[in-house]
């Protein structure tokens, strides 16, 4: 049972703040680190993996420091995001090299076991440079598992995987977590994270925006206010009627566009055509303004 604790961790590069005052405790089970691209997920994982010093705050592994402490790699297995490996050697040679670097007593057996876990025994005598992206991803996974670590940190592990490989990896991570390991992976796709992660930590623009199980995160994301933009023959009349009917919380009229904010999505979409007909206003265009994932995340931050 291993726990990673981030305490008020910030990291900046020059004037750019990549991670801003984040406190997270990662315990056994699967934790999903969710956030849009550029949110600081990789920076956070680098700090947990001992490859980057926090500018302020501390990162500890079972109470001990992570930074400048190579001994942590007996406990941590790391799956980095970059694809580059020593790809002039075969997968088996590479796994064997990793096992020897860990100083394992029976490196050959450990390499074989890791290859079996990721289902890569059969192609393991080909140079890594001949592999597809998904196969390379599995070899990266195998190198992280070769010493049977109790913590696994994965940076965007599902990138470039086809659906079958994705299911295979999800299954593998679930099994590893069921054995009591601490597994943390990053992703920018909510559906990926909520399928397997017991705990979800949401990171947006370097801030820790939300934390909880997938139900809580899903609720936060769907129960937020929705924005619509409407073009009609009489924006002012329609705006007044929508407010009067209680279908909208707020309206903004200007420049030929009516912006509507509502917290009750169902009520709004039912009321809009009725109100428009009653008022004799013709609707020219109705579109949701902010259904992108980025705006969902932005809402979580502003909350």
């Amino acid at each position, binding site marked *: 049972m291993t726990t990673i604790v981030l305490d008020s961790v910030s990291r900046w590069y020059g004037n750019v703040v990549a991670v801003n005052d984040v406190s997270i405790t990662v315990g056994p089970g699967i934790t999903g680190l969710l956030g849009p691209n550029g949110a600081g997920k990789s920076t956070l994982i680098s700090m947990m993996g001992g490859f980057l*010093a926090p500018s302020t705050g501390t990162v500890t592994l079972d109470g001990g420091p992570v930074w400048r402490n190579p001994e942590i790699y007996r406990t941590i297995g790391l799956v980095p995001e970059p694809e580059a490996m020593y790809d002039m050697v075969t997968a088996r040679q590479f796994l064997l090299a990793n096992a020897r*670097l860990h100083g394992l007593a029976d490196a050959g057996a450990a390499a074989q076991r890791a290859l079996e876990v990721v289902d890569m025994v059969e192609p393991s005598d080909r140079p890594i440079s001949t592999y597809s992206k998904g196969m390379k991803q599995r070899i990266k996974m195998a190198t992280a598992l070769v010493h049977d670590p109790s913590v696994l940190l994965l940076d965007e592990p599902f990138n470039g995987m086809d659906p079958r490989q994705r299911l295979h990896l999800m299954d593998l991570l679930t099994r590893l977590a069921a054995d009591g390991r601490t597994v943390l992976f990053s992703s920018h796709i909510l559906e990926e994270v909520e399928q397997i992660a017991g705990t979800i930590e949401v990171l947006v623009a370097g801030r820790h925006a939300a934390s909880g199980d997938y139900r809580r995160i899903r609720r936060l994301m769907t129960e937020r206010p929705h924005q619509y933009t409407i073009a009609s023959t009489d924006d002012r009349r329609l705006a007044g009627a929508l407010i009067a009917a209680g279908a909208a919380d707020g309206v903004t009229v200007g420049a030929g566009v009516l912006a509507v904010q509502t917290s009750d999505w169902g009520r709004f979409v039912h009321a809009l055509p009725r109100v428009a007909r009653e008022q004799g206003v013709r609707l020219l265009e109705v579109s949701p303004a902010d259904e992108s994932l980025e705006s969902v995340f932005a809402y979580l931050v502003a909350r």
Partner: protein
Amino acid sequence: MNVVVGLTARGLLGRRRSLLLVILPVLLLVLAGLTRWASAGSVTDSANLTGGFAMGTLLPLMCLLIGTGVIGPEIDDGSIVYLLAKPLPRRTILFAKLGVGLAAMLVFAVLPVTASAAIAGDEGLQLTAAYGLAALLAGIAYTTLFVALSVLTRNAVIIGLLYALLWETLLGGFVPGIRDVSVRQWALAPAEALLGDNARAWGVESAVTVPVGLSLLAVLVVGATWVAIRRLQTLRLAAAD
């Protein structure tokens, strides 16, 4: 440590640019043969070739190729993470890489430079021994320096090239002040001493004395190694997030 040595050697020799490691020394040996043929084995001409092109240009270039080749590409593409994410002291990794670099330097740089003096013209292998010693000392210093540079900056090749060509080759040859702060001059000091009276006649001269040259070389090698280890201990490996 053996694993790091194995992976490093494969990385260094398995890339396309390792062809240069063979082509450049062959070029030098051909030039040495031509020099012998054209000047009928004159030791002064031989010393000019070895002291000029071989020591001044080829040796630093070869050490640059080797020194940046043993660690630079892995830092660039991020694959060094597989070495660093292991319960190994970082100095072990650096020493292994430096060891491969020095061994390659011996084979691909020092041997050809030494051989070129013997081929182009010598008297009882005196010049060969002197330049062999100088090439060995300079090679150790250059290789260590360029390995450290690769750990310090991603622009190690450019900076190293500017240093080798501008500072050591061009300015170091003419400007008196710079000659005192030049690896080549420091390494030539023991060679000059070794040749005794012949040194002046053959034009093997150093700007510094033997104790000064040797101690500056030692300071450089130890200092560069120390800096490289320190830097590797805190190497930042953050993806472009």
